[in-house]
């Protein structure tokens, strides 16, 4: 479970990292690796650390306080609007207050707007009310450049991701309307406390009964909340000419106030709380997307940093090889010998070299190695040609064998076959042969035949 601000920060860093130049995340990655094993936690820690370094945290704070201030400002404006609306509808004390008129002028707009909001909210999927939109628009205009723009975009994306945009806008709209209505109640409260009002209802052609009925039905619900309703006599007596009697004035003022509180303030409060609860619910359900490309790539990065890797010790030293050293020329007993080492390519050696040299059986496993060495000990050739497959790797075993074979001859040369093959490891062969002091020109077989014949 992450706090909203963590997710916001993560989102902002995500957006930031999608645009060059890249952030230097080495330290942040390390911090994240140390913090947890869990990818989501690591991502959040990394984002927090990166955001701190790149100014996004500051931008988050600034944006947050801007949002707070703007909401407070809007609420303050709403409050003032409400107060002045209340004062305007009550008028100066020279005239009695027309209760019906005052009630309609105070409640008509907020109620109509509430219904419109509700209808839009139900019908279209993204309506959150006009105040909310206006607020969003204004903030968007204010947070337009640098890290703040990134932070704002992250906010919008997160809000959208939580499918909470309309709840947000609704919450704002209701909050502002709530403050307007609260302003009305406060205005009325102040006015009723400090000024002397009398109340009437007026009609040209309706009967008293209509007003009695109207006043009582309007007052019924507020009555349940403790707001008094003028009794029938008072209502009847307040027609057209004001009744300047304390109890009547108190009753009417109570009735008016009750109506505004119950039919204006209360529905907004309910809507406000509902939006706030819905938001809370949505954010509870909000989780990080761990399978998008960004998170996956970072996950790989973390894995990479953790998984590589111990070694068992310092790398072994490079092999040092003795130079090949043969027998002295005067010890030689025969002219030439040919042997194929660890390859089946030597099967036609007889045809190629048989006339001029003794061809030994191909040499591969332990037994054949031993045999060949014994044979060479008998032969002691002046010239030894070793046939090799260039595709093989010149490994240590091969080189050791080569050295052992060469020690029984005066002169040793190497014929690499398959040198034109794409897998021929010529450079490795050259390096190894040079190590042990064998000629590295890999020779054509014609020249080698001539060499074997002693020319």
């Amino acid at each position: 479970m992450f706090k909203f601000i963590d997710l916001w920060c993560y989102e902002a860093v995500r957006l930031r990292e999608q645009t060059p130049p890249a952030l230097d995340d080495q330290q942040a990655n390390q911090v994240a690796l140390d913090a947890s094993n869990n990818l989501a936690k690591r991502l959040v820690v990394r984002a927090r650390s990166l955001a701190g370094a790149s100014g996004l945290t500051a931008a988050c704070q600034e944006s947050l306080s801007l949002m707070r201030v703007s909401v407070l400002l809007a609420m303050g404006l709403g409050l003032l609007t409400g107060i002045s609306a209340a004062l305007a509808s009550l008028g100066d004390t020279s005239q009695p207050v027309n209760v019906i008129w005052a009630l309609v002028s105070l409640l008509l707009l907020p109620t109509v707007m509430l219904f419109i909001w509700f209808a839009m909210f139900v019908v279209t999927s993204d309506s959150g009310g006009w105040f909310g939109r206006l607020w969003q628009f204004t903030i968007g205009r204010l947070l337009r450049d640098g890290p703040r723009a990134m932070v704002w975009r992250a906010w919008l994306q997160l809000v959208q991701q939580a499918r909470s945009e309309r709840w947000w806008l609704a919450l704002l709209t209701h909050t502002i309307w709530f403050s307007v209505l609260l302003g009305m109640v406060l205005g009325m409260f102040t006015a009723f406390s400090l000024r002397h009002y009398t109340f009437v209802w007026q009609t040209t052609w309706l009967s008293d009964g209509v007003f009695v009925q109207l006043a009582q039905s309007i007052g019924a619900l507020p009555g349940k909340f403790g707001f008094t309703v003028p009794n029938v006599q008072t209502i009847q007596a307040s027609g057209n000419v004001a009744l300047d009697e304390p109890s009547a004035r108190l009753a009417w003022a109570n009735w008016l106030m009750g109506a505004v509180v119950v039919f204006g303030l209360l529905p907004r409060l309910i809507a406000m709380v509902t939006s706030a609860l819905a938001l809370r619910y949505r954010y509870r359900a909000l989780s990080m997307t761990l399978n998008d490309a960004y998170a996956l790539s970072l996950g790989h990065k973390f894995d990479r940093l953790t998984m590589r890797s111990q070694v068992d010790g310092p790398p072994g030293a490079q092999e040092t090889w003795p130079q090949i050293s043969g027998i002295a020329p005067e010890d030689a007993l025969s002219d030439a010998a040919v042997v194929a080492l660890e390859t089946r390519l030597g099967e036609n050696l007889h045809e190629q070299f048989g006339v001029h040299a003794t061809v030994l059986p191909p040499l591969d496993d332990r037994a054949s190695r031993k045999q060949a060495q014994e044979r060479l000990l008998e032969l002691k050739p002046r010239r030894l040609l070793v046939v090799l497959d260039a595709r093989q790797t010149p490994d240590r075993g091969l080189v050791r064998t080569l050295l052992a074979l060469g020690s029984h001859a005066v002169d040793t040369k190497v014929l690499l076959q398959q040198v034109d093959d794409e897998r021929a490891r010529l450079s490795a062969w050259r390096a190894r042969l040079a190590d042990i002091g064998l000629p590295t020109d890999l020779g054509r077989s014609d020249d080698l035949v001539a060499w074997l014949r002693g020319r």
Partner: protein
Amino acid sequence: MFKVDRALQIAVVGHTNTGKTSLLRTLTRDRLFGEVNDAPGTTRHVQSASVMLDDQAALVWYDTPGLEDSVGLRDYIESLVRPGERLDNHDRIERFLADPMADVSFEQEHRVLVQAMQSDALLYVVDARDEVLAKHRDELFLLQACARPVLPVLNFVASPQADTKPWVQVFARQGMHVYVGFDSISPPINGQQMMYDTLGQVLAEHRPLLNALSVSAAQQRRDRVIAAIDLLAALCLTVAGLNRMVKDDAAAIEQAIKKQQDEVRKHEQSFVEHILELYEFSTEDYLPTTEGWSEGQWQADVFSEETLTKLGIKLGKGAAVGAAAGAVVDILSAGLSLGTGTLIGAAAGSAWQSVDRFGKDIAAKWRGQRSLMVSDAVVLALATRNIQLMAALEQRGHASHQPLILDKTQKATAAFDHSALLDAIGPARQQTVKRQLASLVGAVPTNSAAAREVKQVLLQADVLQPLTVDGLH
């Protein structure tokens, strides 16, 4: 959530230069693991790489130095047996490891055998292109003497020179009937799964763990494809939504077209960089068809007729009528001004250009401006090419050195429903009041519905089908 009690330890052993490190690079998707070189003895110490499962290390691979002189080593070990002494093979190996001279003359082999004795199982890697020689048989003898399950891996089986038959026979003679054919350069798309599943056959008591690893590998592959398609859908929508207001004269239009093309290239380049990162490759792994990676040279050819035809974008009805003419002119404004004529001229001069149609921005119309958009054909080309890229990356081993060039890959198709894609990007093209408002607010207009739809269409591409399903063997 799988609970790992103890991480499995698997040593990768074999003759020198058979691609042990390459195999591990591909299996762990780490292109920088170890050191790879075409010379004997490149890896000179044991190096480990762990595979994570649910945030725990579940399996540790050990890359070992190559065995270079098994014939000599076997001789040496025989020489350690005193006459008349009866030692089984495992005892002989232990005798060797205890021998004070062992790590002098057979330093690398000593390290390998030490690691082998500490591991739960051994992967014996051979290059399937090599001949079977006595030294290989001796290696098998030595490894079997370690008394650990040995799973032979035939590496580079995708090569035309590979000959697996003699190898399989040798394995069988040593009593090893289970083996894996693999290729570090172009691994099977379910390569990791295959490896875990086969290991499960020789390590019966660890089968649950290996099964979990196999499942997780498949899941990761699926996640990867879907995340990549997400990015591609975003690219398509962004490019389709590019909209540049331009004054109605030829020079201005020409300039605007250039600018817009550059924008498209930049978007594609950044997309490709992200994809490469997602697939754990780097920009060294992919060579765009034309030039290199330097700024501004990026694949200028999305806008060329040749590329479009190569990618199989049909410039007929419906799909991309606009591209065929170089420009589509909104019927509403066609008769209205001379600008129409100059517009077509400018666009035709740089054929297949992006001028597609006019937006519905009424204010712009009043100011005598036109809106330039990227043509349908270009969006289709981008989608096709990058689906191919994804498919190619999915089949590329992390041991590969040659950069990938899409033209050369065999599967040059990436069929998906073109008209469905064009329908799906439709909303991004429309300049609705809501979108304009959103951009005023500072949001990047999101089309989550459109993105979902584009994603659906792209996921249906034929080459991606096998990547999102399980259990291919």
